[in-house]
């Protein structure tokens, strides 16, 4: 989930809880889900950056191996 999606869901969850449409246990579980979503978003971004960097380095090595 993106940070914007997490924010939007947080507002929705708070509204549902305040209007009594979800129980306290459900509210807690959904908030925990948002916490997990934040960890996934950060880890996925980090992994993506690592892969992108790896790709750039490999391209550079391949290009150099053609010359050298």
């Amino acid at each position, binding site marked *: *989930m993106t940070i914007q999606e997490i924010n939007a*869901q947080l507002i929705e969850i708070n509204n549902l809880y305040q209007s009594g449409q979800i129980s306290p246990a459900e509210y807690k*579980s*959904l908030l925990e889900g948002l916490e*997990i979503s934040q960890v*996934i978003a950060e880890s996925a971004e*980090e992994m993506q950056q690592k892969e992108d960097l790896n790709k750039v380095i490999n391209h550079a090595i391949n290009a150099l191996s053609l010359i050298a």
Partner: protein
Amino acid sequence: MKKLLLSIFLTTTLTSCALYDAYMMAGYDTNEYGLSVKIQTIGELGPKFCSNQSTSYLYFKDAYEKSVELKNFTMHIEDNKEAHKLATELTKLTKGAVEMYEKQTPVSEPFCKLKMAQIEKNANQISHVLARKPR
């Protein structure tokens, strides 16, 4: 005789090349990606069944079982810590949904829909990075 040997050589070599190509065509781990997409699909289709407690419970249980499978699959592969971490977090998320059905009856429809959305969006993000991770 020479022609026969040549044709046998070419046939076996070309077949091997085709198999190698088919395997290497996807530069990513297709098993990891496949499991992640299955979980994403459950999250996408699941909300339709949120009015039915037993069906929605089965959907969450299926998502949980598949995320445990993904977690276990990613565990022993070399240089795969990040993918394993993502799968572990997804397992926590799906487990939370299953536990809610086991301790509270009935589970509300808004909870079911929002939890399915969390599963779908997170699995989608994981599928996105797994499809770009070289084997």
